[in-house]
């Protein structure tokens, strides 16, 4: 009976739940799904992390390679984030080039990295003007059940914290790089950005961490990215319902608390993994 109602009138079905301050999966409006973290499981990557937010699963693997810095910025390396939403993770994606959504999320990740300053690009320089690191951060969604942005940011941050780079020196005679695989150095993580996504329904219900179903029904989505010094480094609101100032303030406050929890989780997990 309930299932029929849901199929026939999904919006009304959902509204009835929200009126009771509860969501169909039993969560309260402000409740976030259980977050689990697995760090460093991909040994072929320089750094990796698998994050599960409820059902949504994202794996981030970071490959480090050597390249020449650009002439304009000889002291800077590169961080290249890409989000892949393969057909494996949901029936809504088909094989082929990245979907529009994947492109948007990839660009958002690039913005977050740049705005938050999570990694100083100068740290990636080996020899000025000659040699630097490029970190390819590839995030792949393995199970798409909504809120892929938050999951991607957590996986990116955790994977970056897991990165170990081999020591590279330049042989002065030949000018070619020499890699010392034995000596590995961690990356200096300057900031810890964490994203929190909110869904808006019927212009006044506000709920955190939307599932796939909720994302489809929501009239607007808002993502707030904050760093540990309680600053907002990125905000993403692609159209939809307008929000009043007080509501926005409410979102930011909630995002700050959530970010604190996530940072604690990442640190705990990293400490529990033997390096």
């Amino acid at each position, binding site marked *: 009976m309930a299932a029929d109602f849901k199929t026939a009138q999904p919006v009304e079905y959902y509204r009835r739940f929200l009126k009771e301050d509860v969501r169909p999966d039993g969560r309260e409006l402000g409740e976030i799904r259980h977050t689990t973290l697995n760090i460093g499981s991909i040994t*072929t990557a320089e750094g*990796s992390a698998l994050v599960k937010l409820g059902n949504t699963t994202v794996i981030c693997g970071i490959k480090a*390679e050597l390249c020449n810095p650009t002439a304009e910025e000889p002291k800077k390396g590169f961080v290249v984030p890409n989000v892949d939403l393969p057909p*494996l993770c949901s029936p809504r994606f088909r094989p082929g080039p990245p979907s529009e959504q994947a*492109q948007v999320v990839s660009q958002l990740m690039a913005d977050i990295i740049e705005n938050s300053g999570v990694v100083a690009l100068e740290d990636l320089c080996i020899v000025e003007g000659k040699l630097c690191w490029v970190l390819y951060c590839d995030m792949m969604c393995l199970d798409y059940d909504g809120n892929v942005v938050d999951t991607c940011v957590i996986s990116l941050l955790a994977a970056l914290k897991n990165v170990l780079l*081999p020591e590279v020196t330049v042989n002065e005679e030949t000018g070619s790089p020499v890699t010392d695989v034995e000596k590995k150095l961690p990356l200096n993580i300057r900031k810890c950005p964490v994203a929190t996504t909110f869904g808006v329904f019927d212009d006044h219900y506000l709920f955190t961490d939307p599932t796939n179903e909720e994302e489809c029904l929501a009239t607007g989505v808002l993502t707030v990215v904050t760093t540990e010094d309680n600053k907002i480094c990125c905000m993403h609101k692609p159209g939809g319902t307008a929000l009043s100032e007080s509501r926005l303030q409410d979102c930011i406050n909630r995002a700050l608390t959530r970010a604190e929890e996530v940072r604690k989780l990442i640190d705990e997990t990293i400490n529990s993994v033997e390096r």
Partner: protein
Amino acid sequence: MPTDSRRVPGPQDSRSPHWYGKHATRQEGDTRPDGRGDHDLRPVYLHAGVVSQATGSAYIEMGQTKVIAAVYGPREIARREEFTMKGRLCCELKFATFACRRRRQHIQDNQEKDGALIVLQALEPAVCLDRFPKSQVDVYITVLQDDGSALAAAITCAAAGLADAGVMMYDIVAGCSVRQCGERQLLDPSVGEELSQEGESAEDHGMVTVGLLPSLNQVSALTLDGHLQQQTAVQAVKTCIGGCQGIYPILKDCLVTSTRKKIPALDPKSSHASTEGQNGQT
């Protein structure tokens, strides 16, 4: 190479730091680096039902090799084509960019296309395609880390995903590889053993992968790379079949567990039958 405007661009060209490093050389000896005997499998972890959005899915770990497969369908054929009474099976295989030591590209390369075809032809004989006319079943496989025998793991994982999706099958498919280095036959090789140049100069060297329908004892996939004497080749295929028989009970266990989870009221015997479909020959 044309630039890819749909992804965040990186520098024009970059090189792996490992080119400039010293490569660890493999020690000669009777045991393998991980202490296994030549005909031992690595520990296998197989779990079905890992992707919530898919009709069926499975995840396999063989040593450090990690493969995930998701099955969607039977659903409408994407491209309108001629009417067919038989269903279609489509298969796509992708290595994650961070799956190997060298970084792989986002765009599907020839090795992946070849692998997809082998997995497809390994699965086709097992699936009752006549049970879903006009529709297709999509199998998407991603290799998250390749530590050797990725193709064999992909076959096993995809078969478990198909069974988990409730697609009618005559039998399950188990995959297994053997690396031949001179006289030695290494079952379920790790990536170090796959790439080692030991025995390259010897008469016999090569890699054999077999997909087996274990209860029908039919070989649905067979590939061999390298140069082998006829007798050695036959022997290697036999070793692979032995390896597949070793994986079979793990596959069965995994499917029983996942089915029990889906239908708690069902007793184990009948639940087993429902996932494997009818267990007979056509």
